């Protein structure tokens, strides 16, 4: 339990939280808040959160998980208030919609005495969260570049398709470029394909018209990679050792890797299941005899035919 003495200034809140804890001394209530899934990756996250809820509640009968998804930042802020006032949660696992507008609402949850676990997107003020679980964007770029270097030699040409212009995209791209530096591989150009299949298809078509000699493509994302592969096949340029590296860990892509696909031979993990990791760690904070607070940065594992099976979830929407 969190020490309430720290909250001396907030006697009221402290008293309320205390009575809440007393009333529900037998159950540990954990609120899990994340954006409403509107794209495949988020839908995968939603699925993994539901799986983790079932698994953890079966494992620990005294743990009660409350999953809430919200369609925009202000709805998420209200949802957090409800988790505190209605459900009187002991811990919160939150994937913030946006960092800025949710920093204060999360801080208020913390003031109620709850343990805070932040997933994927950090808050704009340090020190609020007790536990931080996130994927590793720079590592995704670096691992992709390392794989590229094993397949390419000096003088080969690649093109890069980027995501939506955001910090996430920049971190991935900068790390990729830094790792490629000095390899002698030419990066012909990079364009934004917005983590979208249609844009991936069109940008790749234009790259193919523009550059007669391309040896490999870094698509950064599995959705973009699907568009890229369609464009390569249309132009008949999918042979000659051409390969595409995506990222994220879409189940179709992983299945194809398991089946020995050569055009998309590997994938780099940025798993939606990180929400499950965060839920596990949060429960461990109540159940484990070891210390748990801290930062958990997940590896951007290179998925190859050898290890693909352990990342394949056929029932997940992603």
């Amino acid at each position, binding site marked *: 339990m969190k020490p309430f003495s720290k909250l001396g200034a907030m006697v009221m809140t402290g008293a309320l939280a205390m009575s809440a804890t007393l009333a529900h001394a037998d159950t540990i209530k954990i609120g899990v808040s994340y954006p409403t899934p509107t794209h*495949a990756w*988020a839908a995968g996250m939603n699925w993994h959160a539901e799986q983790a809820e079932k698994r953890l509640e079966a494992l620990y009968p005294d743990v009660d998980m409350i999953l809430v998804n919200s369609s925009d930042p202000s709805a998420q802020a209200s949802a957090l208030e409800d988790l505190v006032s209605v459900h009187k949660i002991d811990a919160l696992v939150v994937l913030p919609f946006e960092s800025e507008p949710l920093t204060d609402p999360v801080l208020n949850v913390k003031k109620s005495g709850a343990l805070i676990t932040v997933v994927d997107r950090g808050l704009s003020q340090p020190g609020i969260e007790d536990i931080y679980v996130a994927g590793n964007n720079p590592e995704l770029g670096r691992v992709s570049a390392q794989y590229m270097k094993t397949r390419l030699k000096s003088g080969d040409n690649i093109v890069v398709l*980027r995501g939506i212009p955001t910090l996430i995209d920049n971190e991935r791209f900068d790390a990729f470029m830094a790792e490629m530096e000095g390899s002698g591989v030419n990066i012909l150009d990079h364009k934004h394909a917005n983590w*979208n299949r249609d844009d991936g298809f069109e940008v790749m078509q234009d*790259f193919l*018209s523009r550059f007669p000699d391309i040896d490999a493509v870094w698509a950064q994302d599995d959705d973009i990679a699907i568009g890229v592969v369609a464009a390569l096949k249309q132009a008949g340029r999918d042979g000659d050792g051409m390969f595409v590296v995506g990222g994220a860990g879409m189940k179709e892509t992983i299945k194809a890797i398991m089946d020995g696909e050569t055009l998309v031979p590997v994938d780099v993990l940025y798993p939606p299941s990180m929400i499950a990791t965060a839920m596990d760690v949060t429960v461990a904070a109540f159940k484990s005899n070891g210390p748990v607070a801290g930062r958990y940065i997940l590896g951007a594992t290179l998925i190859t035919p050898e290890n693909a099976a352990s990342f394949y979830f056929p029932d997940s929407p992603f």
Partner: protein
Amino acid sequence: MTLSTANTTAKGRSMKFDVKTAGPAIALILLCIIGFSLNPAFLSEGNLSNLLTRSAFIGIIAIGATFVITAGGIDLSVGSMAAAIAGVMIIIMNNAVDMLGTGVATVLLGCGCSILLGIGAGWINGVLTTKGKIEAFIVTLGTMGIYRSLVTYFADGGTLSLDFAIRGAYRPVYYDSFLGLPIPVWVFIVVSIVGWFLLNRTAFGRYCTAIGSNEGVAKYSAIKVDRVKTITYMIQGLCVSLATIIYVPRLGSASSSTGVLWELEAIAAVIIGGTVLKGGYGRIGGTILGALILTTIGNILNFTDLISNYLNGTMQGLIIIIAVWLQRGDWGKAKASKT
């Protein structure tokens, strides 16, 4: 005084009229010259065929939008409608595999359903606007949200994918060519010709223009305003379903990110082409050029690294404004009145 103004406006009008018709064509030719000078591969056969095929989606939808806008309406739901129709088509075809097999029959069933859905969705927009007496902007803003969330729901937040077995039969609709032109381009051409004929050579087309110019007068002239307006939305829906039929075989999938902002691209294409946004004047030929201009801008931006990726939107915005200014601006008229 009155005489001289009358003279100048007459002179100005004839000049403006020339620029108005030629404006979009001039803009497109300029873009092509820029594209070619940046990279000669711009005019390669492969790129031109990519360009035309890509224009087909927005172009076909924009032809429908020309009718709606000419009759004084607006349809913001087309992008979401395309995504929802694509989603339902994929679900229907995947489920029909057991019954009809993986051949042409399943594909035809999917296409038939697509057309019914498109016309039905257009009818809903039309009836809510005319009989329901709600502004078209609000009706279609509402249906835009509904269709978009429906496709998210059908896909469980993820992506709906067409059964791989059907793709073999359906793929040619996007990727095959007939007489050197890809099939989607042929569909675009046929829709264009039918659309041009309908708007310029039939009573229905004149009714659209009349309603767009002045709905009250049109009503007193015994035009069945509600029916004509509803039909324009149904034409729009049909165009959306045709665009969807050629879109689905491209990547064989639909998700909540399918067709995002197509409505704005279609409206932009219509306006760049010279149709008046408040209705009363429509040009199918201009709409086709407008769609080509929009696709060409994106294509050229992919052909150069001179401009920062972050400024793509700026370039698109500037070119759209310049293209419309070329035909609307008073610059032709101003010169005439000075001399």
